[in-house]
């Protein structure tokens, strides 16, 4: 089973921490952009005809910011070109301030059955500083709208590391999300990327330190679990059965195809990424060329490491049997020394190797030991 990712690079305005391909100034190009997306999908039809897809994910940018007909169009094109399973998980990222009932009806028609809501914080002062277009109240309006339309599988994003953030404030944000009825929370630490406005705040020392984030995270993690949202990956928490299948596929090193500007793919041991420039992307597609700008064949060593690096992010860990089938190597022999060195921090249970709960958030050094 494989996943499909569609990048929608349009936003009303850019958030201060955003370094994704999103173009507030390029509004008006949506029609042309989606035309290109359809064309790109068609272009890969032959190549991917053997594949069956069981997840679709619309990410951005703000997919809920463009006309819902575009989403419907994209879904129709996917169904036309690819084998999509009956019960596929189809996720749309939404901004709480952009959702309307009319739009929801069209999403439903498109087959969207999961929503990922960019809440980020339950505090309006934070949202303002981040240049978000919504308020805490918008979030509750958004979730009640979803529930009225019969949706129950939706998630909220929460950011850690914001200026003056405390565990109490984070708990309040979680409370808000839970009050809205989310079955899933993604809780990310803010990563100030060079070139984003928030990087200045970072340089000025206004954001929380790694230690402070780590402390808040541990508290928040316990709090989330106490609310029945259990951690199935470093940054992702869900009620049983509401884990994101699309994202789990990444961490199990499953294959996926990405469409649109900046989208990445992993097909047949090859990782490739589309152009980050919207005009270049569209030009290439119009010329019937692949819009890829980088492509790497993953060699065996690297593949094994990726499998471990991704797998150890999850609660379940690495499926050792699967490793041996994929790479034709005995896992326990190959990593004997690493396993010995890290025995205090690793769990080996029922054919799965995972990092103990208390070390999941400080895992880089463990993972690095698996690197040659």
């Amino acid at each position: 089973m494989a996943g499909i990712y569609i990048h929608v690079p349009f936003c009303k305005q850019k958030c201060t921490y955003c370094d994704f391909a999103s173009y507030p100034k390029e509004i008006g190009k949506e029609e042309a952009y989606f035309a290109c997306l359809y064309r790109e999908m068609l272009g890969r039809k032959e190549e991917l005809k053997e594949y069956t897809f069981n997840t679709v994910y619309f990410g951005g940018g703000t997919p809920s910011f463009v006309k819902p007909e575009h989403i419907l169009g994209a879904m129709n094109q996917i169904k036309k070109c690819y084998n999509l399973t009956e019960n596929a998980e189809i996720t749309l990222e939404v901004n709480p301030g952009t959702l309307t009932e009319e739009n929801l009806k069209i999403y439903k028609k498109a087959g969207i059955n999961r929503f990922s809501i960019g809440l980020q914080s339950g505090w309006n002062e934070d949202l303002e500083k981040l240049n978000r277009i919504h308020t805490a109240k918008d979030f509750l309006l958004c979730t009640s709208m979803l529930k009225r339309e019969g949706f129950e599988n939706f998630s909220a994003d929460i950011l850690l590391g914001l200026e003056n953030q405390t565990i109490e404030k984070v708990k309040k944000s979680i409370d808000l999300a839970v009050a809205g009825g989310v079955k899933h929370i993604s809780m990310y630490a803010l990563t100030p990327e060079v070139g984003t406005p928030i990087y200045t705040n970072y340089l000025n020392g206004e954001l929380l330190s790694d230690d402070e984030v780590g402390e808040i995270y541990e508290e928040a993690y316990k709090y989330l679990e106490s609310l029945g949202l259990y951690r199935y990956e470093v940054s992702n928490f869900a009620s049983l059965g509401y884990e994101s299948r699309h994202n789990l596929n990444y961490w199990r090193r499953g294959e996926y195809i990405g469409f649109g500007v900046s989208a990445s793919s992993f097909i047949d041991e090859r990782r490739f990424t589309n152009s980050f420039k919207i005009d270049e992307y569209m030009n290439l597609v119009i010329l019937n060329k692949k819009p890829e700008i980088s492509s790497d064949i993953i060699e065996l060593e690297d593949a094994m490491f990726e499998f471990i690096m991704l797998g150890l992010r999850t609660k379940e860990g690495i499926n050792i049997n699967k490793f041996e089938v994929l790479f034709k190597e005995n896992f326990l022999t190959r990593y004997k020394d690493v396993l010995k060195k890290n025995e205090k921090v690793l769990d080996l249970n029922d054919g799965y190797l995972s990092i103990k709960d208390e070390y999941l958030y400080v895992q880089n050094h463990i993972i690095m030991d698996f690197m040659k």
Partner: protein
Amino acid sequence: MSKNPSENIRNFCIIAHIDHGKSTLADRLMEQTGQVSSREMEEQLLDSMDLERERGITIKLTPVRMFYTAKDGKEYTFNLIDTPGHVDFTYEVSRSLAACEGAILIVDASQGVEAQTLANVYLALENNLEIMPVINKIDLQSARPTEVAKEIEDIIGLEAMNCPKISAKEGLNICDVLESVVTSFPPPQGDEEGPLKALIFDSYYDNFKGVICFVRIVDGEVKIGTKIKTFMSPKEFDVTEVGVFSPKLTPKASLKAGEVGYIAASIKSIEDIAVGDTITEVGNATPKPLPGYKKVLPVVFSGVYPLDGSRFNDLKDALLKLKLNDASLTFEADNSVALGFGFRCGFLGLLHMEVIQERLEREFDLDIVTTAPSVSYLVHKTDGSVMNVDNPTHLPPVTEIDYIEEPMINASIFSPPEYVGAIMELCQQKRGVYKDLVYLDKLRVEMKYVLPLNEIIYDFFDSLKSRTRGYASFDYEIAEYQKSDLVKLDMLLNGEICDALSIIVHKEKAYERGRAIAEKLKEVIPRQMFEIPIQAVIGGKIIARETVKAYRKDVLAKCYGGDVTRKKKLLEKQKEGKKKMRSIGSVEIPSEAFITILKTDNK
């Protein structure tokens, strides 16, 4: 080539305190004799090691041959042997002195006579060299050549009023120096017809020619085909090449009595040649070897380990090659729980240790870990036996020790009078015993102290310099052993002794040092997944404790489809840093930790 009868040869060296302009003068002499044109002149030609140029010091002696037509119309051959200035390299100096008849003594026109100046003068006198003072840097604003000349006469007792007063930097009065070399220094004595007798004063290994011996021919002649042997090795060799230094190796037909040059004889094994040994001819051997050199004993010891354990043999090769032209370096295989296989090396001093470490890293491309330097202690055991311990790990259990003796030094510290108080305080801290204080003149005092060597091998020199704004200089000689109250201080990381961090220290200073080292370790050990307790322990008793806190967050914030390649690169970068670490049990320590902990009381 008998155009140069030994009458016209002058073999000399230049001695000076560090930074008084020795290498600059050597360059100027070569330039003026046309040995190198000023166009192709690279600054400080003789300091060919990168390390020497960077630090502006001379470490290795380097010979060069020059031709000079004197005022008497005759052409003279000059063999100049450049020498190091630092106290640690006294041994190198004495080696070059034995190959010379004269020594140019450079004195800085503003700084005057310094500790090292004196030390080198005494060495030169011991070797029966003629000494010619030269006052350098007369171009400086602060130059006081007449006063300095008087200083030389008063302190050293050399006639100096009419000596050359020059500026090597500006090229002023260099011809005075060249002329004085002819008139002040005697030509070499020696019997050209007698059996071959040549002193090996240096050597190095060449991949094509084998060992190259730097020699001073005392008697006889050596040419290609001469069958030679040395006194210390039974092996015989056929000479394949002889030549002189110009300053690059330049082949010649033969070398005769009085000359300085090199010999190559397809000597493949480094062990077959010892610096200080005498070369003679097979079948026509000289009955008695030259006195050779006083064997120098290392006084500072430290463990040297390859960062990558699999490079043990490379390290061994490198040390062997270094030893070839640095006989003062000693080493033997050693094994540490924390660091694996390596060598316990003996050095002449701290600078010597640093230089060897840097040469290992630069010239042999090795990443090494070095442990805290130690001196050699005499441990008197309760069973009456005495053992030498230069590695704290080898110290027997307390119950088996009757008492320990440590090596002392006689230190001479020269300084302007205003720093006397600061120096006394420093010496006091270092367990020094005051002996004497002499006013050399209005501006300089000489203080004499007896100090334990183990107190000065850490940071004494740096502290002295910083307390006297760089004015004080320091010289020492090893004195006798003294009974002392010494204990072994161990460092525990995460509850386990790290043998590479153990030191032997005076009981009264143990608490302070233990605390300082623990604090320093806390600074240099990066935070890890676990909390790491650091404890300083003496005989089972914990005297200091610090904790390296565990980090709270060390994770890639998110990792989805598009992130994999980028995040993998981030991890690879993080891993690079980790590779510079040594794992000791479950704790990772950066390799420089072992040395930086020494710089604990540099206030």
